C-alpha cells in the first residue's frame, strides 16, 4: 500500500510531503507526486508512532473490562503503534505460554504492536523468579519484566532479578511501593488524607524503594526502570542516580502530570489510582523532570476497570484509570502548551525513549527515508471535551470525563497501514 501525506509538519517543523510505501517512508520532500491515495496533512503534525511502556489490556482474565483488541483500538486512537501489556493478568503472564498468547492476540488485532511484559516472579508472588529466559526466548521476545501492581519488595530477590535479566538484555520495571508502609493505603498521605479520613500512601513508600533499587542496580551493573514515578522526591533520587551513572530509566503517567489529590474530594473512586495522585508541587516536579530528561518517558498505566469496581465506596474500589486515548492530549496540555517540551522532545519521551527501553528496534525511529512508517498525525489546535461513553476502551473509568483537552489524533499508521483514519479506528 502506498500513501502520500501532503503538507504535514514532521515534529512541528516546516510542511513537507511524506510518501509511505511498503511499510516504510519512501520519500520526504516538497510537492511529491504519486498515484497513491492522498492524505491531506495540512495543519497536522507528524510524530513517530507512540510507544507505551505500561498498559493493562486485561486479557486473559478480565475480558469484561478490556481485551487485547479493544485495548489495541484505544491505543491506535491515542496515536500509539506499540504498547507493552503488563503481566498482571489472570493467569499471570509468567510463562512463555501466556506471553505468546498475548503477543498472538496482538498480532491478530493488528492495530498496534502488542509487546508482552513478563512477570518477575511466579504469580506476582514475590518469592520465586519466573522463567524469565523462556519468556525472552519465546515468540513474544520479552525484554521488560515487571510485577507491576505489586512491588518486588524483597531486596535479595530484586537484586537477583536485576542481575539475571542482564543475560537477556532485559530490564526490571519496578512498581516502587514499600508494602509495609502502604497497608490499607487509599490516597496520598498529606493534608487531604488527614481531613478525608482515608489511609495515607506516603511519598516515602515510593522513594525508599527507588533509593534502594538504584543502589542495587549500580551494585550489580544492571538496567532498572521505574514505573509511574509520582513524587518530587522520586525525581530527585533518579536525577542523583543518573548523575552517578546508574543505568536507571523512569516513566511518568499522564494523570500524574495533570491531576492532584484534590480529586479525592467527593470520594469519586474514578480518581483512585496506585500510586495515588499527589500534590501540585509533585506535579510541577514531575513536569520539570520530564522536561530535563530525568524522567525518560510518558507511559499511560492504562488500567480499565468495571463500573461496579469504581461506583462504590472509595476503599472498596480498584485503583487505576484509563489513559491510552488521552495520553497525547494531556502531554500537549501539560508539556507543549506550557513550553516545557518541543515536539521533537515529545517524540523522544513518547516514542524514541520508550522504544529504546523496551528494546523495540522497529519502533521509535525517526521520520526519515527508509525508516518504518509508524506515524501519528495530530491536530494540535483541536480541543475536545472527553466523553467516556465515546471511548474505544471497554471500560469507562476515565479521569478526564468532562474535561476539555487540547490536541486530536487524526491518523495513525502502523508499518504504512492506516490503523486510524480521520479519528476512526480501521479494524
Amino acid at each position, binding site marked *: 500500500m502506498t500513501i502520500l501525506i501532503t503538507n504535514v509538519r514532521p515534529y512541528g517543523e516546516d510542511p513537507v510531503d511524506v510518501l509511505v510505501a511498503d511499510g516504510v517512508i519512501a520519500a520526504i520532500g516538497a510537492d511529491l507526486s504519486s498515484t497513491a491515495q492522498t492524505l491531506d496533512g495540512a495543519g497536522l503534525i507528524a510524530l513517530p508512532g507512540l510507544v507505551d511502556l505500561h498498559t493493562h489490556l486485561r486479557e486473559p482474565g478480565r475480558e469484561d473490562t478490556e481485551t487485547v483488541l479493544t485495548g489495541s483500538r484505544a491505543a491506535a486512537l491515542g496515536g500509539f503503534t506499540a504498547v507493552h501489556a503488563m503481566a498482571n493478568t489472570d493467569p499471570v503472564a509468567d510463562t512463555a505460554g501466556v506471553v505468546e498468547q498475548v503477543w498472538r492476540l496482538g498480532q491478530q488485532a493488528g492495530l498496534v504492536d502488542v509487546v508482552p511484559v513478563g512477570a518477575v516472579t511466579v504469580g506476582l508472588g514475590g518469592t520465586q523468579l519466573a522463567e524469565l529466559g523462556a519468556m525472552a526466548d519465546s515468540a513474544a521476545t520479552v525484554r521488560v519484566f515487571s510485577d507491576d501492581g505489586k512491588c518486588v519488595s524483597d531486596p535479595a530477590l530484586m537484586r537477583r532479578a536485576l542481575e539475571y535479566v542482564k543475560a537477556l538484555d532485559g530490564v526490571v520495571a519496578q512498581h516502587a511501593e514499600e508494602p509495609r508502609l502502604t497497608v490499607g493505603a487509599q490516597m496520598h498521605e*498529606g*493534608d*487531604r488524607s488527614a*481531613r478525608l*479520613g*482515608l489511609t*495515607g500512601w506516603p511519598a516515602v513508600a515510593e522513594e525508599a524503594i527507588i533509593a534502594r533499587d538504584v543502589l542495587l542496580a549500580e551494585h550489580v551493573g544492571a538496567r532498572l526502570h521505574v514505573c509511574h514515578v509520582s513524587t518530587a522526591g522520586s525525581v530527585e533520587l533518579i536525577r542523583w542516580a543518573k548523575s552517578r551513572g546508574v543505568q536507571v530509566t523512569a516513566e511518568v503517567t499522564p494523570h500524574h502530570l495533570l491531576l492532584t489529590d484534590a480529586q479525592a474530594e467527593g*470520594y469519586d473512586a474514578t480518581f483512585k489510582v496506585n500510586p495515588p495522585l499527589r500534590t501540585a508541587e509533585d506535579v510541577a516536579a514531575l513536569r520539570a523532570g520530564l522536561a530535563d530528561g530525568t524522567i525518560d518517558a510518558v507511559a499511560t498505566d492504562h488500567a480499565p476497570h468495571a463500573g461496579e469496581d469504581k*461506583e*462504590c465506596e472509595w476503599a472498596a474500589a480498584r485503583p487505576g484509570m484509563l489513559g491510552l486515548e488521552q495520553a497525547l492530549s494531556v502531554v500537549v496540555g501539560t508539556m507543549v502548551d506550557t513550553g516545557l517540551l518541543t515536539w521533537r522532545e515529545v517524540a523522544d519521551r513518547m516514542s524514541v525513549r520508550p522504544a529504546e527501553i523496551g528494546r523495540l528496534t522497529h519502533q521509535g525511529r525517526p521520520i526519515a527515508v527508509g525508516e518504518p512508517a509508524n506515524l501519528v498525525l495530530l491536530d494540535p489546535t483541536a480541543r475536545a471535551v472527553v466523553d467516556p461513553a465515546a471511548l474505544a476502551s471497554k471500560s469507562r473509568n476515565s479521569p478526564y470525563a468532562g474535561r476539555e483537552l487540547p490536541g486530536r489524533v487524526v491518523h495513525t499508521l502502523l508499518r504504512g497501514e492506516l490503523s486510524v483514519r480521520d479519528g476512526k479506528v480501521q479494524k
Partner: protein
Amino acid sequence: MKRHLLEAADLDRADATLVLDTAAQIESALAGREVKKLPTLRGRTVVNLFFEDSTRTRISFELAAKRLSADVINFSAKGSSVSKGESLKDTALTLEAMGADGIVVRHGSSGAPHRLATWVAGSVVNAGDGTHEHPTQALLDAYTIRQRLGRLEGVQVVITGDVLHSRVARSNVWLLHTLGAEVTLVAPPTLLPVGVGSWPVTVSYDLDAVLPGADVVMMLRVQAERMNASFFPSAREYSRRYGLDADRMARLGEDAIVMHPGPMNRGMVIAADVADSPRSTIVEQVGNGVSVRMAVLYLLLGGPA
C-alpha cells in the same frame, strides 16, 4: 440547611447554631410531657442503614425519628460491598425505590455517605463513616458544652486519644472551630495524622501541660489492636501518659468538664472515678444525642412533603 448532613466540615456557623437552637427548642417543648412525641415527620420514612454495628448510635437515631412520628426502618447490612453480595449503590437504589425520605448511614468506609448522596433523592445523614466524620456526635458534643458552660466562643477544648483513626475527633475539630471554640489535640505522635498541621488546632504531646487551661477534656477511645501495630508500646504506657485519672482530673479548673463519646474503655483512657464524677457529661451526652438528632432530622426532612 443543605439537603444532606455529610460532614461537620461543611456546616457554617449559622447552620450549626440552628441545629443546636432547634435541639434546645425540641427539648423544652417535650420537657415534662407525658407523651414524648411530636407529629412533625408523620408519613415520612427514615431508614437507618447500618453497615457497621453501632447499637448506641442506631438506637439514638431510631428514637429521634420515632419521637418525630416518622416511620423507621432499620436496615442492617453488615460487611463491605462488592466482596459480599449487594453493592452500596444497589442498596441505595433499592431504598430509593421504596421511597425513603431520609437515610441515616453508618459505614466502615470513609466517604460512603457522600457516594450514597449522589445516588438517592432523599436526604443522607452521616452516622459515622470510616475514619472520616461523625457529624451528629460533634453536634451533640457542642450542644452539651454549650449547655454546661453556657457558651462555645473561646472555650478551650482538649481532645485526647486516637485522633488518627477517629471520626469523632475530625467532626469535633471542624465544628468546634466553626463555633468559635479553641481546640487542642493531645496524642502520641503516632496517633495524629500526617497533615494535622493544616487543621485549625493546637497540637501537643503532653496532656499534663494542657490540662490546667482546659474548659473541656474530651477523651477518645483507643482500640487495643492499635497496640499490636506499634502505635504505642503498651496499654499501661498509654494510660500513664494519656489516660485521665483522678490525679490528672484534680489539675483541671473548677468548672471544667470531662466528655467521652462512648463506648468507654474504663481504666486505660479514663479512670472509673473520673467517668462517674460530677464533671463527667457522659450520660448527658447520650440524652442530648437524641435531641440533636431530632433537630437534624427535623431540619432536613421537616419541609413540605
